[in-house]
């Protein structure tokens, strides 16, 4: 569907520049229509559009500034984070080193304690074995002496006659006298 003004002049004869399909009147009409439309838009909508665009621009500018600030903040944050990480790493290494040292000391103390305990147990065991050996030696010696005594008694009773007994008594008395 065409412009009504254009249809109004469509039936007229074309001459001059109109032969090329260009109609100055139509152009003028279109220009006038455009100007009217422009004025209407300017009066009612352009300001709002401009304001909107301005607001949008400001918003974009603010966003960009905010982005730049955020970028700077991020850089600062990254730097701070890096420092904190470094500090935390140093602190962690220190803690780990201390923990290693403490663990080493605890292990050493445990080993010392265990060594002392083992030494004590060995000492006790050695003493007990020594006592038991001594007891066994004493019992063996007593048993042996008892056997010797009984054997000696049997032999002497058999072999000690009156003469030998008198000689024995004389020797014993001589010892006493000496």
């Amino acid at each position, binding site marked *: 569907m065409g412009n009504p003004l254009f249809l109004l002049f469509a039936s007229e004869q074309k001459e001059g520049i109109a032969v090329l399909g260009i109609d100055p009147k139509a152009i003028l009409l279109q220009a006038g229509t455009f100007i009217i439309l422009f004025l209407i838009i300017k009066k009612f909508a352009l300001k709002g559009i401009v304001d909107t665009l301005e607001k949008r621009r400001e918003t974009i500018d603010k966003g960009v500034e905010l982005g730049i600030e955020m970028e700077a903040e991020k850089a600062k944050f990254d730097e701070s984070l890096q420092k904190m990480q470094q500090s935390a790493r140093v602190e962690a290494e220190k803690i780990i080193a201390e923990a290693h040292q403490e663990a080493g000391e605890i292990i050493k103390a445990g080993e010392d304690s265990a060594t002392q305990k083992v030494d004590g147990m060995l000492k006790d065991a050695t003493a007990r074995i020594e006592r038991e050996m001594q007891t066994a030696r004493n019992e063996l010696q007593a048993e042996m002496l008892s056997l010797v005594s009984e054997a000696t008694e049997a032999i002497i009773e058999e072999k000690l006659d009156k003469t030998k007994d008198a000689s024995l008594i004389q020797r*014993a008395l001589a010892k006493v006298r000496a």
Partner: protein
Amino acid sequence: MSKQSNKTVARAVVAELQAGRSIKRVSKSLASYLIEERRMNDVGAIIRDVEKQMLVLDKTLYVHVTTAHELSAAMKKEIGALFADKSDAKHVHIEETINPDVIGGVRCETAEHRLDLTVRRQLQRLKGSAA
């Protein structure tokens, strides 16, 4: 009547003996007294007290000798001489007891001393040395 001590009884016995009474009579009196007083268990201690007092008052020493075999007279004399040398006694009386359990050697006992040179004692000492 309170019970007389062993020493008092021994002193009475010694006084009787020194008064010239026979040993047999004094022994009977002592036995009667101990039976009456039910003190027969004290007889050994009283005899030792008598011997102690006899040594002090009369310089007489009683030596009880125990052997496995009978002692010869020379041996008794030698024992008497040994005890006379070791004490103040002028007279030594040997009382001999034969006991085969001592195996050999001699055991001499006075009221205050004991000299055990028997084989039995030596063997006991040998056994005891391990303890």
